């Protein structure tokens, strides 16, 4: 039975989760990738977070960027390197080495580097060290033999010093790093990657190796924004979260009725799919309205319309969403799907959810995301979103547009969600009506009927369709039947009606 080795938390969002606690403590870790993949930033964030969150001072030795450039580059992330240096939490050291300026006249060693690093470590009691990118030494010094032997000695020395170190390396041809650093650093190797897919940049991270520890082996998307690096783990895949049996109203009494009279489970996820113009956004807006009416908070992510558009449009069905916005209960966030990659969208959502702590989240519609990523990626993103919100006990409503072009994303997503509502167009007798039914609703009694779904200036309503000898009637045909029945003062023979449910309640 292998005991898990001691680890140092990186403090980088998500990275500690996929490494099950951080980087191997007191040992060097190699982070490699191509130019611009974010390795310097990741290493620097490790140092900064160590100094600010875990009281572990750090030394950052840069072999490429100038120290002052580095400070300027990360100031936008809110890392105040100057202050950390003043408080003896950080030592920045820029190593300048140029082949053209140095003449080699015989045997030498890298004792200078050892002394320099040792002095920096001792001067602030550093627990963390970054060497970024030490491979540049190979360009500055010509004797490969000496360098290799000295690097081996350096990594051994770092272990003896007991510092948790990150060594960054440039991606090489056919090898992880250009000069085979992985040969010396064998405890933990992380590869970063920066690809452009469909003209949208995607950053990914993979732990290639982590000796003595379990770790996630997938490629994890990560992003860099004004808050530094966020790695997005496919959150805990253990299906062991607490579930609520509390119910929340959908905002449409007749729809609540279909869900056993009480509505959705709190913290569950609901998929609402249908063809264009079937009122998906209206149902979602009703749910948002209801959540806010009960003093809950709601975030509405809109990928199609601007908040103003939604508010205006929903006013036409009797919803005053702007009052909830004013009270700070409702937040709209509209973005064009193509604005960022999927990961960025997901991370933005995480952030906003974390900040606002809503009771309900609406994403309208998820199908637009397919324009940004491949169907598989969209699914995995939604899986993470569903998972994340479920863990937080937040009710999630997703809408999806049904059409051939979207490859039936609703079917793919339906296994992730707890309830699936379908709205369909029914064309009969030259008129178009909407029919709604529940495809599934886990863990509760629910209606199996198809109901006619009516949108009017008074709001949304569901009424029973007419089933009679003439078949199923909907729309004006149903209304005519209804009137006929009313005139007869009794229920029509074999056909049956139930009074509209909202009148009962």
């Amino acid at each position: 039975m292998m005991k898990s080795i001691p680890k140092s938390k990186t403090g980088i969002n998500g990275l500690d989760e996929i490494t099950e606690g951080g980087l191997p403590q007191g040992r060097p870790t190699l982070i490699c990738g191509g130019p611009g993949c974010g390795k310097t930033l990741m290493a620097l964030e490790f140092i900064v977070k160590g100094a600010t969150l875990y009281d572990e001072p750090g030394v950052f030795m840069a072999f490429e960027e100038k120290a002052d450039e580095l400070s300027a580059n990360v100031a936008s992330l809110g890392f105040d390197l100057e202050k950390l240096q003043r408080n003896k939490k950080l030592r920045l050291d820029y190593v300048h080495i140029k082949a053209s300026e140095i003449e080699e006249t015989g045997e030498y060693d890298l004792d200078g580097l050892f002394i320099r690093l040792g002095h920096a470590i001792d001067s602030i009691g550093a627990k963390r060290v970054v060497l970024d990118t030490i491979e540049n030494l190979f360009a500055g010094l010509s004797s490969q033999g000496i360098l290799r032997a000295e690097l081996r000695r350096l990594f051994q020395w770092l272990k003896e010093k007991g510092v948790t170190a990150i060594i960054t390396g440039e991606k090489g041809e056919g090898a992880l790093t250009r000069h085979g650093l992985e040969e010396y650093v064998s405890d933990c190797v992380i590869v970063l990657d920066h690809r452009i897919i469909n003209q949208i940049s995607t950053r990914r991270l993979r732990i290639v190796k982590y000796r003595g520890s379990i770790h996630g082996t997938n490629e994890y998307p990560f992003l860099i924004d004004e808050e530094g690096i966020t790695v997005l783990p496919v959150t805990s895949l253990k299906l062991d979260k607490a579930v609520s049996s509390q119910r929340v109203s959908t905002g449409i009494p007749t729809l609540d009725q279909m869900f056993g009279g009480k509505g959705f489970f709190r913290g569950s996820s609901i998929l609402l799919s249908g063809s264009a113009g079937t009122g998906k956004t209206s149902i979602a807006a009703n749910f948002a309205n209801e959540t806010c009416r009960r003093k809950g908070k709601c975030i509405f992510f809109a990928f199609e319309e601007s908040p103003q558009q939604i508010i205006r449009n929903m006013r036409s069905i009797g919803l005053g969403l702007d009052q909830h916005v004013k009270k700070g209960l409702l937040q709209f966030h509209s973005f064009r799907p193509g604005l960022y990659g999927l990961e960025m969208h997901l991370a933005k959502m995480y952030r906003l959810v974390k900040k606002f702590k809503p009771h309900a989240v609406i994403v309208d519609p998820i199908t637009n995301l397919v324009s940004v990523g491949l169907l598989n990626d969209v699914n995995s993103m939604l899986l993470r979103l569903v998972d994340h919100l479920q863990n937080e006990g937040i009710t999630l409503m997703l809408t999806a547009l049904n059409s051939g072009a979207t490859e039936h994303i609703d079917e793919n997503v339906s296994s992730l969600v707890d309830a699936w509502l379908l709205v369909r167009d029914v064309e009969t007798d030259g008129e178009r009506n909407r029919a709604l039914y529940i495809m599934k609703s886990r863990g509760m009694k629910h209606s199996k009927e198809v109901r006619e779904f009516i949108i009017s200036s008074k709001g949304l309503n569901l009424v029973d369709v007419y089933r009679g000898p003439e078949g199923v009637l909907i729309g004006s045909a149903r209304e005519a039947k209804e009137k006929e029945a009313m005139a007869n003062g009794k229920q029509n023979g074999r056909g049956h009606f139930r009074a509209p449910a909202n009148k009962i309640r």
Partner: protein
Amino acid sequence: MKKEKDSGFEADNNDGDPFVFRLYVTGASPNSSRAITNLKAFFEKYLKSRYELQIIDVYQQPQFAKSVDIIALPLLIKKFPLPERRLIGDMSNSEKIFKSLNLVS
């Protein structure tokens, strides 16, 4: 090594001010000891007494490692006359030293 070097070192230092060198070493490590011996012999041969050599043990004064930007040792820096030159190694290759110190006129 070329013969004519025996007499000629006059490069850009005709005014008689002595050359100024700093040699950074690490204690009495083999490379360091060799560098000191080699360098002294070299200077005696080509510069006679017209040089100043300051030897600094970086172990004793580690702060120099950063301020002087040291990585590889032993390190010889020519401080005067300008331009500053940097040489690393045990100073066994006197031809290279000769060239890079600009001693050939």
